[in-house]
């Protein structure tokens, strides 16, 4: 899916898939923190949206 998004011009960093079980709270928090840190510098996404 990440590769497909890249193929249609979306920054693959904006999309991540992780396997996290219900008991892995720490991993969940860590993943989200990392993702947030990564995507903040990318700025708002303007692709796959309708300009209204």
């Amino acid at each position: 899916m990440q590769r497909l998004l890249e193929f249609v011009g979306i920054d693959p960093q904006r999309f991540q898939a992780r396997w996290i079980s219900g008991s892995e709270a720490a991993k969940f928090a860590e993943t989200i923190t990392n993702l947030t840190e990564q995507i903040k510098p990318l700025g708002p996404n303007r692709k796959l949206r309708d300009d209204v």
Partner: protein
Amino acid sequence: MMDLTQKMRDKARELLEKEEVKYVIGWEKGTFWYQSPPVFISRPEDVDKLVWDQFCINNLSKYLLDFKHLEGKIALFVKGCDSRGINRLLQDQQVQRDAFIVIGVPCPGMKDPEKAKGLSEDKADQLQLAEKCATCTTPNPVIYDELLGDEVAAAQVDDVERFARVNELEQKDPDEKYDFWKRQYDKCIRCFACRNVCPACNCRECVFDQAEPEWLGKRVVSSENQFFALTRAMHVAGRCIECGECERVCPMGIPIMSLNRKIIKDINNLFGSYDAGMNLEDQPPLGKYDVNDPEEFM
């Protein structure tokens, strides 16, 4: 080809006269010289409608779904690519193997009716093969009860040729890619012809038809159209038999196969080479679990 046409007619007549089948599905000559649309024959006296020429491009396998509840059998003609559609439907458990008879026809490659439109009939020889046929690796049916005619030699097509359009698009920078696909799918009118013709799109209820939950909006706008494209591509991922029917029927000329081929290319890289619908034994890579599967998301 005249020879095969006669063989097809004889076979169809035999099946219908013996009442072994209720319908025979094949191709007939259409309104224009460059069209050979599907034909459904139920009476022996109609078998002379059947033709086999260079425009029998339609994949007939999907019609099996329309006759799912018919009492009695169906016979249908298949080319190499169509036969992979039969395997697709069988593997997806959409049809019973004993409910139909498959008559295989080795295919020398079809011509593109769209390209023939502007030409006069006497220039038919100058037509190039349709794009999907030029890179075809399975001209001979892979599943059949009976094969008419002699097998034809399969062309050697390497991955460079097969994925030429994908590779070309991959070279573009992200914004160019996005612009390209946005322009393509801005044309989409959401007629769902690509889905309706696809042998891999065989769900009884399709996500795109559901109103509740609304997986995808029904509006024909840029974003929804692009999500439609991506969703459909992922739904047939690993199951696409590369018959190219989606692209052929698209009234807006969207290069849908580029998306499908991109996924096929990725699957081949990640899970090893796999061609959908070549046999009934090999499960689609995204439909089975193997301990050696790549685990990029762990």
